[in-house]
């Protein structure tokens, strides 16, 4: 019989999972550019679709950048758990004596590092392309930094719920977008306020609060969803 002292602690297990997922992300480092290029292309589509008027573009810029960032994250979210599900790693993870909570959190954090963070760093460029007013850049960066974290967390719930299904793609979007809405309202609200020179610390505070809440609560839902899906 195996005594409890032979089982690694939660910290060690989380570190192991973090290391593994970072390694996987590194092996697929080409994937990092995918959401970036997607965001770039969608931002280019808009001037083509609605006409190149600078005033109009500047007016919609804060909202547009946020919507695009959100869609870019969304598209990569659907596959957070897919590969691990298919090859059985997820099953092994959930059958291990470790609490799913922290392992899942580690996976989501890695996902954010390779999707949300790069998109955040590129956002000012998107703003520039749409001639966004100068006051909006700081709130854009900060709001996306936190906003993408909660998007990853919420998105992972959707990914967890649909991991057993073959065709997750659009379904995840459907499930998850309504849940994103508050995050987006406060995020883009801050940027709009910044563009117009109004104070935006209130919006940012709410955004950070939502992010913290999502980060501690979402893993519960994700773990539950994954356990349900394991029993197919």
């Amino acid at each position: 019989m195996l005594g409890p002292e032979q089982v690694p602690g939660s910290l060690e297990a989380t570190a192991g999972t973090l290391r593994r997922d970072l390694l996987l992300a590194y092996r697929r480092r080409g994937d990092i550019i995918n959401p970036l290029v997607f965001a770039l292309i969608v931002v280019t589509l808009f001037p083509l679709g609605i006409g190149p008027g600078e005033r109009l573009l500047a007016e919609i810029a804060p909202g547009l950048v946020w919507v695009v960032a959100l869609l870019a994250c969304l598209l990569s979210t659907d596959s957070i758990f897919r590969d691990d599900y298919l090859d059985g790693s997820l099953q092994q993870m959930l059958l291990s004596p470790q609490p799913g909570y922290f392992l899942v959190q580690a996976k989501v954090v890695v996902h954010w590092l390779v999707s949300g963070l790069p998109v955040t760093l590129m956002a000012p460029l998107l703003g520039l392309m749409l001639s966004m007013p100068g006051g909006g850049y700081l709130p854009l960066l900060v709001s996306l930094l936190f906003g993408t974290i909660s998007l990853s967390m919420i998105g992972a719930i959707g990914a967890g719920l649909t991991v057993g299904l073959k065709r997750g793609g659009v379904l995840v979007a459907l499930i998850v977008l309504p849940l994103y809405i508050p995050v987006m309202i406060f995020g883009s609200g801050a940027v709009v306020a910044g563009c117009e020179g109004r104070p935006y610390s209130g919006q940012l505070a709410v955004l950070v609060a939502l992010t913290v809440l999502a980060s501690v609560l979402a893993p519960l839902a994700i773990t539950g969803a994954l356990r349900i899906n394991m029993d197919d």
Partner: protein
Amino acid sequence: MHPVRKQRLYIVLFIVIGASIAAGLIFYALRENMNLFYSPSDIATGKAPLDARIRAGGMVREGSVQRLGDDLEVRFVVTDYAHDVTVHYVGILPDLFSEGQGVVVTGQLVTPERFDATEVLAKHDEEYMPPEVSDALEKAGRVPQN
């Protein structure tokens, strides 16, 4: 400690800390004015920024609607019965727009007294009564809204 209990304790600790941080932040945010919506009193007391896209709302003061020239320019006074603000608007007004009726206007404040609207929406309040009752009330000297 039993390992399973320890794991649960960690999780609960994590959630409690997270929730308190969130609560603190929300508390802070509630003291900030995040509203895009300003009442005439807010505008009069200087809470609303100038030259930024904002929304304002209140009642159209009776007898304040003026048509300027023959194009679609109108001017009217929006009030919350404490302060007034004058709204300029060029365009077609909604059907339900009338004096004594609620409105929401979008646009920007040019000076603390003058609001240039790009959009005017008629807002309806929660009073419902038959016309006879309303007439009766009016005769008794009570204006049937607010």
